């Protein structure tokens, strides 16, 4: 009760501070000289209030204060402390509070760190950011207040959905939000810069840091979500093209493109329109994602509650932001004199433009695949869901030229360039083609396409690998990221090409034998934990080469709420994952057993970490390549 009240009122105070900040900024916009410290302390105060409110919610969760509706709906006394805390942001209301926390944190740091920019620009960024913050304050307080009372107080809570009780998922939302919501500051600052017409190389090098930070967090956040899906959902995959995954991928694609564009702007003062549009669309896509998964318009694992009122609020807010940004873009943006035509065809700029168009293509594929079901539903009341084949068919063919462009592009120089060491480039291309032909030939399916695909990925792999040895670390961050990307594509390809699966029904004591593997269902154990009972099945699996693995998948029967989950047992080695999961078949004494061998799973995770590591290095590096 007590903490809920504090939390609630500090939210309201936070909203008031937004209004004060906007009032001050607008009033002193014309002659803004003295406000700097005042505004800094107000933004800090606002951040502080949201922190208090967030801490209050955490305390309510830890104390299992069921007079709070959010706690009641998402917690239970028997839940381990770690998940009581993690449960704070594992629900709609709490995660929106986290969203607000990140928004206020970023504007505070922005004011703390931005020193050499014009004060007008800072004030205007503040105003735009505060408009977003006010929107979310209202949204939180009006439609999804995390501090609603229940009276009389229930004795016990509803419990947290067991599939959310996972360490990866406990840190996934905060990390993802730092990227997802962090893009708001790019949005605000791009609008401010456009309005004041200061989109220049100075602005570019200032905002670049923010883009890199958001990008690194967004990449890691998506990775964590993917790891969670792999280990917890037990479907044996890491990416399902589920709407919720797509809505995190879309801002990532836009942000990645922006990251490349901003380099051109920094060097050459061109591509200003690209940069502004991408800055706007990154955040709009994040908002759009929030709308799609929170309104219940699409079904996904992130649909916490189907509440059309919430959906309507975000929808209206989203489109007002789009309108404002379009207005500012069309009326205040003056495109620079030197336009695209002045580019020499073979130069770094051209390759970045090519990269942009590819990225925009991928983005539109994902966007259409995600929102097409809504359009179809409205037009014809048909319910469809767009699955992996759609994305694979449309994306894979374009991945080939994209990978090759990615290999050659970074080797080019600014303005005008010749291709240097042609011999190497061609030699490596031939090596990649031969090598991939030999690899794919062993598994003779779809030879031509797979060979080309693998060889283009290998090509990028070799070129970036060679770069590590010849270039004297002048642009190591880019090279690491591109190397990571080639590794990612290779791992995904090999993972798809070489994985194998056995699905069968087994009783205890039975053995399944195929040409390559022997699965023995040895025994069954039971275990009782604080918040669930579990049935553990013990399998031993023997391969052709006589290696025996013991795997023990679990079925967990959670008590609050009463849900059965399958815990896959996964044995990870450097080269492949062995994955086994069991399911209950109703009214039968046998279990449904699914056994998969998935090569290079570990490398998918590692390569994504490598990609974000590349970004991290560029953040700490002072100067980009000369």
């Amino acid at each position, binding site marked *: 009760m007590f903490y809920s009240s504090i939390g609630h009122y500090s939210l309201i105070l936070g909203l008031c501070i937004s209004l004060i900040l906007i009032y001050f900024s607008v009033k002193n916009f014309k002659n803004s000289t003295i406000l700097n410290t005042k505004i800094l302390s107000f933004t800090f105060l606002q951040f502080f209030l949201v922190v208090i409110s967030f801490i209050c919610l955490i305390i309510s969760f830890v104390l299992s204060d069921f007079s709070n509706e959010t706690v009641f709906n998402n917690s239970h006394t028997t839940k381990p402390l770690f998940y009581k805390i993690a449960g704070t942001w594992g629900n709609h209301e709490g995660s929106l509070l986290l969203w607000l926390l990140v928004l206020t944190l970023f504007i505070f740091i922005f004011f703390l760190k931005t020193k050499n920019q014009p004060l007008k620009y800072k004030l205007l960024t503040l105003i735009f950011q505060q408009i977003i913050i006010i929107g979310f304050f209202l949204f939180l307080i009006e439609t999804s207040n995390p501090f609603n009372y229940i009276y*009389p107080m229930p004795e016990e809570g509803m419990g947290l959905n067991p599939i959310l009780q996972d360490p990866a998922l406990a840190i996934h939302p905060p990390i993802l939000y730092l990227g997802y919501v962090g893009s708001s500051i790019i949005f605000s600052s791009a609008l401010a810069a456009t309005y004041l017409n200061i989109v220049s190389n100075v602005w570019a090098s200032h905002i670049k840091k923010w883009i890199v930070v958001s990008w690194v967090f967004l990449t890691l956040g998506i990775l964590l979500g993917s790891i969670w899906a792999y280990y917890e959902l037990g479907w044996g995959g890491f990416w399902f093209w589920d709407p919720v995954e797509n809505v995190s991928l879309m801002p990532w694609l836009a942000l990645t493109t922006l990251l490349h564009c901003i380099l051109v702007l920094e060097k050459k003062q061109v591509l200003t329109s690209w940069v502004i549009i991408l800055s706007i669309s990154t955040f709009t896509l994040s908002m759009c994602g929030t709308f799609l998964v929170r309104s219940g318009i699409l079904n996904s694992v992130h649909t916490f509650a189907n509440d059309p009122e919430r959906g309507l609020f975000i929808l209206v807010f989203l489109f007002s932001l789009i309108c404002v940004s379009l207005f500012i873009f069309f009326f205040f943006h003056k495109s620079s004199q030197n336009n695209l035509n002045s580019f020499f065809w073979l130069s770094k700029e051209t390759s970045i433009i090519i990269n942009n168009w590819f990225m925009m293509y991928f983005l539109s594929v994902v966007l259409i695949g995600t929102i097409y079901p*809504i359009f179809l539903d409205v037009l014809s009341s048909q319910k469809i869901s767009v699955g992996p084949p759609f994305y694979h068919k449309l994306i894979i063919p374009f991945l080939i030229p994209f990978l090759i462009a990615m290999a050659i592009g970074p080797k080019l120089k600014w303005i005008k360039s010749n291709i240097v060491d042609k011999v190497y480039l061609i030699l490596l291309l031939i090596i990649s083609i031969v090598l991939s032909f030999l690899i794919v030939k062993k598994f003779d399916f779809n030879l031509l396409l797979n060979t080309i695909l693998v060889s283009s990925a290998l090509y990028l792999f070799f070129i970036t690998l060679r770069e590590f040895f010849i270039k004297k670390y002048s642009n190591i961050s880019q090279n690491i990221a591109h190397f990571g990307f080639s590794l990612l594509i290779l791992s995904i390809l090999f993972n798809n090409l070489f994985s194998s699966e056995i699905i069968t029904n087994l009783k205890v004591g039975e053995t399944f034998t195929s040409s390559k593997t022997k699965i023995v269902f040895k025994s069954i154990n039971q275990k009782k934990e604080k918040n669930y009972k579990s049935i553990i099945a013990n399998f031993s699996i023997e391969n052709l080469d006589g290696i025996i693995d013991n795997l023990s998948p679990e079925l967990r029967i959670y008590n609050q709420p009463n849900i059965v989950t399958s815990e896959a047992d996964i044995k990870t080695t450097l080269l492949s994952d062995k994955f086994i999961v069991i399911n209950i078949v109703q009214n039968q004494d046998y279990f449904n057993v699914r056994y998969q061998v998935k090569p290079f799973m570990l490398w998918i995770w590692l390569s994504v970490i490598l990609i974000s590591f590349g970004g991290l290095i560029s953040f700490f590096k002072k100067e980009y390549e000369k």
Partner: protein
Amino acid sequence: MKNKLLPIFITSIFIIVFIFFYRGLQNTNIYIPEIKINNKIPSFKGNLFDSNEVTNSSNLFNTDKFYLLNIWSSWCVPCRKEHVLLMNLRKNKKLEVIGINYKDTKINAENFLAELGNPYKKIIFDKEGINAIEWGAYGVPESFLIKDGIIIKRYIGPLNKKLTKEIKSIIK
């Protein structure tokens, strides 16, 4: 000229997208239950809450009184608010309130009733939520007003003072 067309074009695209999203929000109900008012009640079997005996639908609605079938659960927050009104309706002699306890645990449900009172003449313990499906319920809470085996009225969501007045006027 070209400069003016582009903003208009883009704005109109966004307006169209907005309209589609807005319309999409309106029909988010994925599954629309079949049961309509003025139909006969579905026949079903269920376990009684107190005795665990299996009972038939015909045994539950066998008098010429009005019946209010209320689907509830201890974990359902709106049910708490609605419960007070049910306690009030229970005083009416022409009406019997029957409960379906939806996807709940016995202990939680008993605590709930001990705390807020028990307005129900009989309760069916619907642990799997099967009975609620047979009734074509959207979720909890939901209520059906029944007379002579016919569903007269259906209330999706919690009852409020206005609706209880309506029920009382129908019973008169």
